[in-house]
């Protein structure tokens, strides 16, 4: 059997009425992807309603959309080339429906951005371009549409190409292509047009296959991140497994791996990878889980973990842990985002109340104009803000690990914005008023992400090695051969893990992995048990 095709999601974005739905309709028609009779039934519908025929009606299926000739919500449609399966996502261009455009674009891996040749670059041509970049879409082809309306003028095409390429360059995107098209006449959609002899690049159909990737390929070589969705224990039928379930967002997991859950820092070893098959066919038992897999595993020790934590691998780069971060956000809420108000953040499976303590600047994505003095972010604004959460979160920097480096903001039950984390902040730089009370051991432990403990080791060599290992696990250990009681107390008072000889709270065995695990467990600063 031939290796099966991968699939790719493509979003079609751009300003209102520039022809997005028409481009997709024409593409489906010319690529022979429509069911029999579909085009005829749309022709018939338009005739009955005394309207000119619109390819867009293949996508704009809602009555209100057809009545008003506008796309309200994103549509998915499916088609296939020799190379790949595609889901084409038709986004609305009207500013009122930006939330729907984002809903569609957030699932895409590449984009077609449509610009009307006669009208030129408009407000949402730029805003959508900016949003695509923010949503992490780096592969963009620009379609200069309605080229028939400007007599297929190369000059007009070149002008738009120049201006829009310049705009894309300012947001760090190198477009894959600029294609002159006419969706209604069919120029360069599925077939190269003889009427644009000055253009020798790909057609839209050809460009789709030129995009790279598919099925969200990649991510398995990155650090492991499995946000815990739930821990299942279904007792029915004598099933006594306790299975940690979650989506593998990045990395690779195998049985025997040592995992650390953040933010609690609890650690355990993976006992088994769990997957259920109807036919109990053991040949398909998984040997590893990697990015993109909804997975589950059992643990060798029965530690208490719950939804909201992220399972990571010991020895790999740990996530940031903290209550404060800086993020670049887009706001979709009806009422503006304001500092001081309580919102809820959902980041992967974690959820916490939060506040914005500072808005650093607000950007209008259609002009790239930045306002550093803005007091609030209005609907459709982009803003750079500092967030302080009520609960400790484990997260990544969005540029390094996108899926665990982003979050949505819920305002009064509605998802009202999305953000990409740009920087983890310590307790000092959150912009909130500092308390004058003495620092408690609890606060210190939270900040240092560890509880202090004394550990006894046999030899100096082993003490130094252990110190290095714990340090790499993100802990703050300190080896000293000889310590007075005062010195010992001062060090543990400061929150440090003290490695020394003689009596101590934890005694090492000489088995490095077991000792590290034991110390991580003993110094684990879990918020809840």
């Amino acid at each position, binding site marked *: 059997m031939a290796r099966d095709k991968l699939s790719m999601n493509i979003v079609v974005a751009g300003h209102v009425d520039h022809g997005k739905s028409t481009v997709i309709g024409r593409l489906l028609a010319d690529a022979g992807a429509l069911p029999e009779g579909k085009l005829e039934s749309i022709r018939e519908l338009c005739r009955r309603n005394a309207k000119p025929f619109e390819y867009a009606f293949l996508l704009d299926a809602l009555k209100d959309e057809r009545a008003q000739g506008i796309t309200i919500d994103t549509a998915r449609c499916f088609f296939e080339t020799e190379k790949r399966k595609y889901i084409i996502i038709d986004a609305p261009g009207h500013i009122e429906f930006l939330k729907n455009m984002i809903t569609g674009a957030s699932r895409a891996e590449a984009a077609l951005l449509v610009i009307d040749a006669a009208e030129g670059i408009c407000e949402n041509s730029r805003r959508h371009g900016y949003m695509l970049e923010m949503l992490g879409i780096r592969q963009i082809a620009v379609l200069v549409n309605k080229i028939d309306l400007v007599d297929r003028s190369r000059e007009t095409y070149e002008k738009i190409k120049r201006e829009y390429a310049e705009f894309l360059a300012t947001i760090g995107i190198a477009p894959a292509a600029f294609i002159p098209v006419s969706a209604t006449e069919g120029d360069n959609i599925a077939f190269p047009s003889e009427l644009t002899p000055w253009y020798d690049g790909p057609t839209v159909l050809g460009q789709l296959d030129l995009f790279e990737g598919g099925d969200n390929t990649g991510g398995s070589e990155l650090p492991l991140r499995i946000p815990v969705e739930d821990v299942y224990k279904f007792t029915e039928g004598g099933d006594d497994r306790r*299975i940690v379930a979650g*989506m593998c967002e990045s990395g690779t997991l195998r049985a025997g791996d040592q995992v650390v859950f953040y933010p609690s820092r609890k650690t355990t070893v993976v006992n088994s990878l769990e997957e259920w098959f109807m036919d109990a066919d053991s040949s398909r038992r998984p040997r590893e889980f990697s990015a993109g897999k909804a997975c589950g595993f059992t643990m060798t020790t029965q530690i208490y973990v719950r939804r909201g934590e992220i399972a990571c691998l010991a020895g790999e780069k740990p996530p940031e842990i903290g209550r404060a971060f800086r993020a670049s956000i887009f706001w979709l809420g009806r009422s503006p985002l304001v500092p001081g108000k309580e919102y809820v953040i959902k980041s992967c499976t974690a959820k916490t109340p939060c506040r914005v303590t500072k808005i650093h600047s607000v950007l209008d994505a259609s002009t790239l104009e930045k306002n550093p003095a803005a007091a609030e972010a209005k609907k459709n604004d982009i803003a750079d803000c500092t967030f302080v959460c009520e609960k400790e979160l484990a997260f990544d920097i969005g540029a390094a690990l996108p899926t665990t480096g982003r979050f949505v903001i819920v305002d009064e039950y509605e998802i009202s914005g999305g953000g990409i984390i740009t920087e983890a902040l310590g307790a000092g730089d959150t912009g909130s008023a500092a308390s004058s009370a003495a620092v408690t051991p609890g606060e210190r432990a939270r900040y240092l992400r560890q509880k202090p403990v004394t550990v006894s080791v046999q030899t100096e060599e082993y003490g130094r090695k252990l110190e290095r290992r714990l340090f790499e696990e993100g802990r703050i250990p300190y080896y000293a051969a000889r310590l007075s009681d005062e010195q010992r107390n001062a060090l543990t008072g400061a929150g440090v893990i003290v490695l020394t000889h003689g009596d101590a709270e934890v005694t090492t065995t000489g088995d490095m992995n077991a000792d590290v695990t034991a110390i991580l467990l003993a110094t684990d600063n879990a918020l809840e048990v």
Partner: protein
Amino acid sequence: MQYSHLDMLESKSIHILRESYSAFRNLCMLWSIGKDSTVLLCLARKAFYGHVPFPLVHVDTHYKIPEMIEYRDRLAMEWNLDMIYGENREALENRETFPDGNATRIECCRRLKTEALTHTLAGDWPRYRLNHATGKYEEDSDREPFTGVIVGVRADEEGSRSKERTFSPRDRAGDWDADDQPPEFWGQYKTDFAPGTHVRIHPLLDWTEVDIWEYIRREGVPVVSLYFNQGDGKRYRSLGCWPCTKPVDSDASTLDEIIEELKSGKFARVAERSGREQDKEDGGGLEELRRGGYM
């Protein structure tokens, strides 16, 4: 490790099922006995390691092909499913149906499916629950409304479904506000709702008809024999009530033949629901039904 297209679809659907299970206390899954909702049921068994931790709800119009009901009850017993059915008793008793000649197809759908579904979910009409000890259905004393309802619709079925959200809110009357849906991105869904409303959860939106059949073949999902040609050169491509769903002419009697027929054979360019009469009466009829709570 590179996962295949089906692996990715499976994982995304399992993720949605697990998120629903975490978010809703009163969750159920609609099981129409058709191929899509049966695949969904198998995905649930996969998501929860062989268990299905919520009830399955079937709306019985009493015009289903008898084989479907027999199949439903057999699997319910075999897989230890918490099986519930509901119906529009009044409309059936008063014969206010299309086959009785007292309603148009659309009106009939609205009564026997949409109304029966809305009231069964809300719990203000009787629910019948399978007693595994006796193998019989009994009127259920539990009348708690379901707040999360998992449904196996696919975006490629028809226009209004292509516009659906994964988590799609319905108001008190079960109505769908297609023009103002909440945003949904990065695997984060709207899971907080006003009392009296419920959410339809759609884990199969990204699946096509071919994906469904290829998954059935790969996983060994049992489907009703009505989907296969039994020697008379006819089979069902989509299952509904017998007065409104017609079999198609087809020689396909195996999964391989069905998949071949859909991919490159006679149905490669024929819409799946073309055998469904209620989709035809007027353009937008199905959208109207769906705004009113139809699946």
